[in-house]
């Protein structure tokens, strides 16, 4: 038995506001393929009296935290946050999938959920010459776990550094002192560990005199912006920084990002959930792509607010979910192929990995290439 006090839970999460319209479930990308149904989950909690048994609701772990449910809800109910809180109740009882346990333990011990050693965190820098943690700089570039360790995504972090150095932006990195932001930890329901990480990270940034920061990943960006206490720290996603450096942005900054080479390919852009649906950043990534000479940008039908989740969020990089047979990333790549694009661009490490995997699975490597916006821009320097 995995009992929770459901009345208290429903009150804390504003579930009594629900009018059972079903918009959440109708928009839920996982509801296409698993038993997950945010509407009925809310209803069960509402009618359960004060005790509800979470046992057997495996679909709790299907949620990718893409935020479609909340962005569509007319009554401002947030099923996604309710799912995260329900996960917390399960995690508290220690009843979690071994993969989740490993990711959480690794974050606690090594400062990353990838079971990678802390001392290798700065290895991606290689021969790049970047200002170190203790040096003063206008911006902190928060690299993030996957872009630090994953060989594919390291290319993105390196491309981004080259781009920003070319444009004259003054920034530093924390190198080996950088620790996970905690976004996935929070979304896997480990609220206690997340709180601890927030405290440690905040202290570190304060001691380094960080005032402005940008991230590779929309997930890190979102957690700093929306989950951390408001502390005066200005956080941006790197696509926002790049867009502000474009000559057409009209800013009077001396730093400028200009492209001298052509990138003559047809590109379609996949909006990452944590940029678009969570933070309504739709235009900046497109502004960067449109400013690249020779690049032709085409849109998928499901773009911007309707972007289809790649299934990489909410801890799902470590969990298969209840129906691994059908993958949303593969549906997404098919949609990208329909546009005639030969490049599927995104601006998120998780999207990059899931979409690239899907391209391989569909044997479509000769038709479409998955690239991060930073990589495309780097090629056009």
């Amino acid at each position, binding site marked *: 038995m995995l009992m929770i006090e459901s009345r208290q839970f429903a009150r804390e999460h504003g579930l009594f506001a629900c009018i059972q319209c*079903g918009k959440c*479930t*109708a928009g839920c990308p996982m*509801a296409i393929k698993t038993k997950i*149904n945010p509407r009925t989950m809310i209803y069960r909690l509402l009618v359960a009296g004060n005790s509800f048994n979470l046992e057997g609701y495996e679909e709790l772990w299907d949620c990718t935290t893409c935020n479609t449910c909340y962005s*569509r809800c*007319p009554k*401002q109910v947030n099923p996604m946050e309710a799912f995260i809180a329900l996960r917390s109740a399960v995690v508290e009882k220690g009843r979690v999938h071994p993969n989740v346990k490993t990711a959480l333990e690794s974050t606690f011990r090594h400062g990353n959920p990838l079971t990678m050693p802390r001392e290798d965190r700065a290895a991606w820098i290689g021969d790049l010459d970047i200002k170190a943690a203790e040096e003063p700089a206008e911006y902190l570039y928060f690299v993030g776990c996957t872009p630090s360790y994953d060989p594919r995504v390291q290319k993105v972090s390196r491309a981004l550094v080259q781009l920003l150095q070319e444009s004259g932006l003054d920034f530093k990195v924390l190198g080996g002192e950088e620790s996970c932001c905690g976004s996935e930890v929070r979304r896997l329901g480990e609220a206690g560990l997340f709180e601890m990480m927030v405290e440690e990270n905040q202290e570190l940034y304060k001691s380094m005199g960080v005032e402005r920061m940008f991230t590779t990943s929309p997930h890190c960006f979102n957690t700093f912006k929306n989950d951390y206490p408001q502390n005066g720290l200005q956080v941006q996603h790197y696509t926002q920084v790049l867009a502000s450096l474009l000559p057409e942005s009209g800013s009077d900054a001396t730093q400028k990002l200009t492209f001298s080479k052509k990138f003559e390919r047809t590109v379609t852009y996949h909006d990452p959930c944590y940029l678009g649906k969570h933070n309504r950043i739709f235009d900046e990534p497109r502004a960067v792509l449109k400013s690249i000479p020779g690049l032709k940008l085409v849109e998928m039908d*499901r773009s911007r607010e309707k972007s289809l989740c790649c299934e990489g969020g909410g801890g799902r990089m470590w969990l298969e979910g209840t129906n691994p047979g059908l993958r949303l990333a593969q549906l997404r790549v098919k949609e990208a192929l329909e546009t005639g694009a030969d490049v599927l661009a995104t601006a998120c490490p998780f999207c990059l990995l899931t979409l690239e995997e899907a391209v391989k699975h569909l044997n479509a490597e000769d038709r479409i290439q998955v690239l991060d916006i930073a990589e495309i821009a780097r090629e056009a320097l």
Partner: protein
Amino acid sequence: MMTDYASNGHQPAALIIGGGIAGIQAALDIADAGFKVYLVERSPSIGGRMSQLDKTFPTLDCSSCIMTPKMVDVSRHPNIELHTYSEVAGIGGEPGNFQVRIKEKPRYVDVDKCRGCGLCAAACRLSGRVRGEPGSDHNAGVANRAAIYVPFPQAVPLVYTVDPQACIYLTRGVCGKTFLCQDACDAKAINFAQTEKFFDVEVQTIIVATGFDLFDPHRRPELGYGKYPQVITTLEFERLASASGPTAGKIVMNGQTPREIVFIQCVGSRDRSLAENGENGSPSYCSRVCCMAVAKQAHLAHDRIPGARVTVFYMDIRAFGKGFEEFYDRVRQEGVLYRRGNPSEIIRRGDKLLVRAEDTLLGELVEVEADMVVLAVGMQPRRNSHELDEILPLARGEDGYFLEAHPKMRPVDSNLPGVFLAGCCQGPKDIPDTVAHAKAAASAAMILLSKTRNACAV
């Protein structure tokens, strides 16, 4: 009797702002009682939203047929001074003695000469090429016109107006070698030298009947309005279904008759989530008319397109008025399919649209194919109602509508003494409720007017 006051210049008078059904009804009541009315309407014709409707629920009377006689009565009433294409520019004084300045915008057409023949519009270089704003245009932006136009054939007054946003001469300063409209006009009515005119009048009381705007469905981008041409609003459907509309009542889309029609209720009603991206906050209230408007339109679609599959997605059906539930029963029995669930998004598959919803009674996801999707857009307070603030500082409720003095006991009084509210400027209403509200406002205004008359008589 009626003209006595007019002749001695002391006839007690009311100002009515807005010439929709609320303003028209209030004007007729007050004028019939022997008082003077200045009726000010911003657009080129009176008639308002009701003149845009085809049929009215639940009786299915033709909207124009019940509306047009009242519009004509207004134009002929000896006690009503009609100012169309005009705005209230200033109000001074106090209750019982308001000084009002009315600004008449230039139509660039002499209303005394214009016979409404339409030769000018046929001659205009932009004939058939000007698309009005969906929010304010009589045809809700579904049909084109010329840069000189009458909003609709039953317009009152039936005179032409030059659209200053469209007219080539007014926007660019030159229109070919000669004005084609002027050349075509036998009555020599077109006059580009016209300027604003001002009228100063004295009134004892004011009725505000400025109406409503419609929710802009762009604010729910996942529904694809503006992206998919097959997604239209209930007002656009109304123009397509109207016998006097651009398709003469044929429900067609790009020349094709839609076979699968989906209606979506509550678009921009009962929605608290839009506070951040709209000038009028979030429409958290029920708009009261959409359930029945959709029932009527579903009936029309079913009736006029044999074999059409008509689906209505809804959250709750609110059929509270006289004859409403019976009409809802009738529409279902005709074969219109009601499915409970609020669609989350519309996507494209091939040349069809897919409406994605959860059928909440089945607990299943459904994707309903559609070649026409009609969004039941809710009512909104007038977006430009703040323009009235400096002239008439009316209190507003949290929902943005003008606030009545007491929600139950003083439903037509505003916060300003002597100023009354009529119709949808106070909150969403259907036609019968609007007419009742307008009659109540007229009654309240006439209490003041008869006090004035009695005082004069002494």
